[in-house]
């Protein structure tokens, strides 16, 4: 089962190394990991997606908590979470196919960020599932490159971790 762990850490050199090192050392598998600074420049938020059972996730949380630079760890339940991922996707596009690609973009709510006589670069921010669908819909046109950020997440409502 995919679970989302949100981790607040000191924004210092080497912290990411400790976190990823911990995952490999303890044989935990990561689906995705996204890092960025928070409203407090001294603190970064790392969002980690793990595909494991509850006991493994509990152990991941505990091991993360042992790292000195980790300030808070919280697993966000799916029904209480807003999760988004950003994708940039470059696809082959000709005069013939451009309109069809635009239709898919319209349906999915994606934007065209760049265009050339032979290609289009598209941008979509959505849940990982919908991004998978978007990618699948574009595959017949021949995708040239994809860059995905991995999901970031916050919990719904006024609370914070």
């Amino acid at each position, binding site marked *: 089962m995919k679970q989302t762990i949100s981790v607040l850490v*000191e924004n210092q050199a*080497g912290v990411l190394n400790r976190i990823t090192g911990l995952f490999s050392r303890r044989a935990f598998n990561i689906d995705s990991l996204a890092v960025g600074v928070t409203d407090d420049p001294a603190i970064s938020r790392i969002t980690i997606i793990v595909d494991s059972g509850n006991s493994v996730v509990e*152990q991941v949380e505990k091991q993360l908590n042992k790292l*000195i630079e*980790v300030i808070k760890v919280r697993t966000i339940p799916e029904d209480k979470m807003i999760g988004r991922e950003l994708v940039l996707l470059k696809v082959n596009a000709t005069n013939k196919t451009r309109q069809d690609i635009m239709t898919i973009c319209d349906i999915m709510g994606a934007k065209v960020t760049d265009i050339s006589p032979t290609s289009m670069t598209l941008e979509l921010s959505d849940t990982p599932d919908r991004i998978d669908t978007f990618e699948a819909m574009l595959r017949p046109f021949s995708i040239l490159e994809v860059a995905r950020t991995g999901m970031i997440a916050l919990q719904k409502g006024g609370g914070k971790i």
Partner: protein
Amino acid sequence: MNGAQALIESLRREGVERIFGYAGATICPAVDALREVPEIAYTLVRTEQNAGHMASGYARVSGKTGVCMVTSGPGATNLITGIATAYLDSIPMVAITGQVPSYLLGRDIFQEVDITGAVAPFSKHSYLVKDASQIPRVVREAFHIASTGRPGPVLIDIPIDIQEGRLEEFHWPEEVNIRGYKPSVRGNDLQIKRVAEAIAKARQPLICAGGGVWLAGAREELVELAETARIPVVKTMMGIGLMPTNHPLNMGMVGAHGNHCANQALAKSDLLIMVGTRAADRAITAPDEIQRRMATIHIDVDPAEIGKNMQAAVPLVGNVKVILRQLLEGGVPVTDSAAWREKLRDYRAAELSRQFPRREGYVFPGTVMRKLGGKLEDNAVVCVDVGQNQIFTCKYLPQKHGRLLTSGGLGTMGYALPAAIGVKAAQPERQTLVVCGDGSFQMAMNELAAVACAGMDLKILLFRNNTLGLVHQIQSRAPYHGPFGVALDGSPDFGKIAGAYGIPSLTVNDEDQLDGAISRFLEEPGPCLMICDVHPDVSTTD
């Protein structure tokens, strides 16, 4: 004041009285600063790994944080095993390494390695100092982290230009406040109540005590709990000595290499109370089965240990000493365990009266241990290496009120001699003994220099079987095809080696002469080596 002086001043303020180290170019400023501070003694090791082991032995008997200091590159990489050994046994240690100039970091210059990166998987924390003014804060935090919660090694890597850099002012933080590090101390009151309830219901309760009890300084509380509630006690290898061997509730060491009676007790108990132990594979060989068959309580300072190897019915997180006090103050029920204790006493008696085999021209290690135990002082420290010597000592050496120190987690050969040197540095008057095999002794015998140099009254008992005994034993069973690559051919005359350092020695190969030899060995006024000849086919299960 420069960074190096700030470092040494910070160590002084932390109460450091001894550093085990090995100098090299990038640590020279710090070593130079040490010259002006007579309160801190310095022991020069012969290889950096042993600086870690000495700091470990020092820490384990003194209760203080051990300190070692080496140079960059190979100095730091040699120390790695010392750090990993301390990490696996949760020993409070601060390791200081010199580093190449900060402005050259990453260029692979002479004696540069990324040591903070290298030790990340087996250190509690590490610092790479990039500003001399941060040194006092870093040292303060490092000692706090190393010694509180679940103790462990912390590394401070200091580039030489930072050691040489000027400090505008020396700012010593009175308090340490790390927002991501707040170890639990007190146990949850509700859980304490649940523990008491579980104890009240048990008919066949058992305490399994580990190294965490020693680390928390909770031996008295543990014994008081066992005696008040009338609960027998087994120990892991790291917990040996928490209860004297002749205590009626003591059931010996549990685990794959443990005492039969301890394992019988573990298999048959209806309530297992694990205190300061991580239920590691060597001690608790079948955690799933235990979980299924009996109620379990797990008391540990590290929440991550709860549920890692074994899921306990009642987890209790906090300082073991504080928790045991809470339990005792809340009133511990007296268990209705008379029949159980009676049964265990029979198991124990059978184990203690067990006959060891005899072989002409050799002594049996178990026999040596039984005889040695009777002659040791009440609070003696025995440092034991890794291999058959470790198992025989842990299983059969009678414990009184002393300590048994060994590398239980990592199983590092060559640990015992340097650890014992650390013990002697902390407590010169305390009777201290090394037990090792001819394999492990050859991994550390260069440290006899420290023994000779200080004229340390250290006794070294060496089991000589001219093979790597435990591997020999493993290879003698399926799926292997017999001992290979383990014969210690070419070993020197160990008596002559000791003699070259000015240390006397004696050799025993006759059990009838054991008593006299052990007495002579222990009564020798200074250091002494006793070589015991052991047959290579001896097994720890004999």
